[in-house]
């Protein structure tokens, strides 16, 4: 392995193509850490944003007026503001207003760190879109199907869980795919609040080595592959869930 890494050092000396995240152990470790932070942040946000979407859509159809109003207010707030502004808002405005805890070095720290705020903020951001995406799927389920379920004595929760949501899921998958792909790409914004993800680490490396071009090309390819894997997985899922004759 070291032979390959050393080869990239020679490459730098010979051609001035500088890829320190391959030959320099310190830079390599931070790039690997960055990669896994991006994966972790993406998975957490994917999970919670879909959860918010499913629950939010259920509440949108609620018989309680206030539940519907709160969900709609949430959608308007998060859909109509830029995600970067939301990140700053959560980290610097809300974060400093929360109670603090004693930290390891004898001072006071906010309860939530930058990773937690990034996860919360991006989940809510993508979740707002997911609610609307799921609603479009629910509305595509024929009224007669719901009426048939009602006639069989299903409760509202049962109809949502067992009839409309599974059918709606198949309709919304293409739109959901789009939004989740966007979400993975939006995790790069977390670098603004110093979450050590890929863009952040790449930025550190190019500042130390002045190799902006190489790092930009690498980042582009890395995200292309990462999002490609997600899209491939979602497409497989879409095919597996297909019901012949529906949708």
């Amino acid at each position, binding site marked *: 392995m070291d032979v390959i890494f050393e080869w990239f050092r020679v490459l730098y000396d010979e051609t001035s193509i500088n890829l320190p995240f391959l030959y320099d152990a*310190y830079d390599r470790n931070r790039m690997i850490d960055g990669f896994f932070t991006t994966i972790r942040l993406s998975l957490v946000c994917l999970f919670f944003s879909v959860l918010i979407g499913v629950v939010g859509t259920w509440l949108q159809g609620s018989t309680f007026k206030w539940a519907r109003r709160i969900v709609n207010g949430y959608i308007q707030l998060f859909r109509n503001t830029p995600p970067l502004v939301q990140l700053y808002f959560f980290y*610097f405005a809300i*974060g*400093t207003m929360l109670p*603090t805890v004693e*930290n*390891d*070095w*004898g*001072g*006071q*720290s*906010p309860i939530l*760190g*930058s990773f937690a705020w990034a996860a919360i903020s991006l989940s809510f951001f993508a979740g707002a879109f997911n609610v609307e995406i799921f609603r479009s799927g629910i509305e595509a389920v024929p009224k007669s199907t719901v009426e048939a379920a009602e006639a069989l004595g299903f409760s509202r929760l049962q109809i949502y869980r067992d009839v409309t949501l599974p059918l709606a899921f198949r309709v919304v998958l293409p739109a959901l795919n789009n939004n989740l792909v966007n979400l993975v790409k939006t995790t790069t914004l977390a*670098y*603004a*609040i*110093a979450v050590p993800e890929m863009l*952040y680490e790449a*930025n*550190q490396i*190019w*500042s*130390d*080595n*002045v190799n*902006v071009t190489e790092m930009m090309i690498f980042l582009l390819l890395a995200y292309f592959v990462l999002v490609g894997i997600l899209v491939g997985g979602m497409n497989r899922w879409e095919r597996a869930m297909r019901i012949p004759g529906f949708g």
Partner: protein
Amino acid sequence: MSNMTMNTFASALIISAMGLTAASADVLDSIKERGTLVVGVKADYKPYGFLDSSGNIIGIEPDLAQDVADKLGVEVEYVPVVSSNRMQFLEQGKIDLMIATMTDTEDRRKVVQIVDPNYYSSGTNILALKSLGLKEWEDLRGKPVCGIQGAFYNKPTSQNYGAEIVAFTGTAEAYSALKAGNCAAFVYDDSAIVAKTNDPEWSDYEMPLKTIDDAPWGLAVQLGEDEFAALMSDMITEWHKSGRILELETEWGVANTPFAEAMHAKFK
């Protein structure tokens, strides 16, 4: 692609490349032609370059840039830059001259033309709560330490002293994260930290460590702008000789630094 088109394509490339070098080789002419000198300066680095209450960029480096513009007989225009984009701005020709608190390093000299002699110097230190009682750089091991994205000392601070660098895009974010307790300390240029510790709002904070990596700052022009570089070199020598740097330090409330005093003595 046929041979003919290949040739046309190649010569078109060569011609456009020649056009580019021709256009950039005489930046002095284009500055005079357009009547403005575009200078990249910091806007978040009190007192070297910062915003006044009405949003204008002021400070020691803008004043130096004004001197250059006066010398050329043109107007000056400030473009705010940050550590992670200042060299790119210069490379792309968005700015003619960069006076932006940049430490002079070998790697950077490959990308931009840093003008000799150096005009200023500073070292690395931290700003931390007095109550933490930090004494040594080693005390930072394992603790989150705020920094600025693009600063050259982030890597040594984490590599040599084991600090976990939490780097932000600008100083305002880093100061606010330090105040909120997200980091144990803020690693930055000692010259800026000294100014901060004099601020009553930061009276609970101190600069407790020994300054390390005292390194000269370089102002820079695009690579290959030899004529402009020679002119800037004369300017810097003149600043040191006349004591202009010392005068600006006093004017902006910085104690005279040993570097500025030594350079004044050297060129006097």
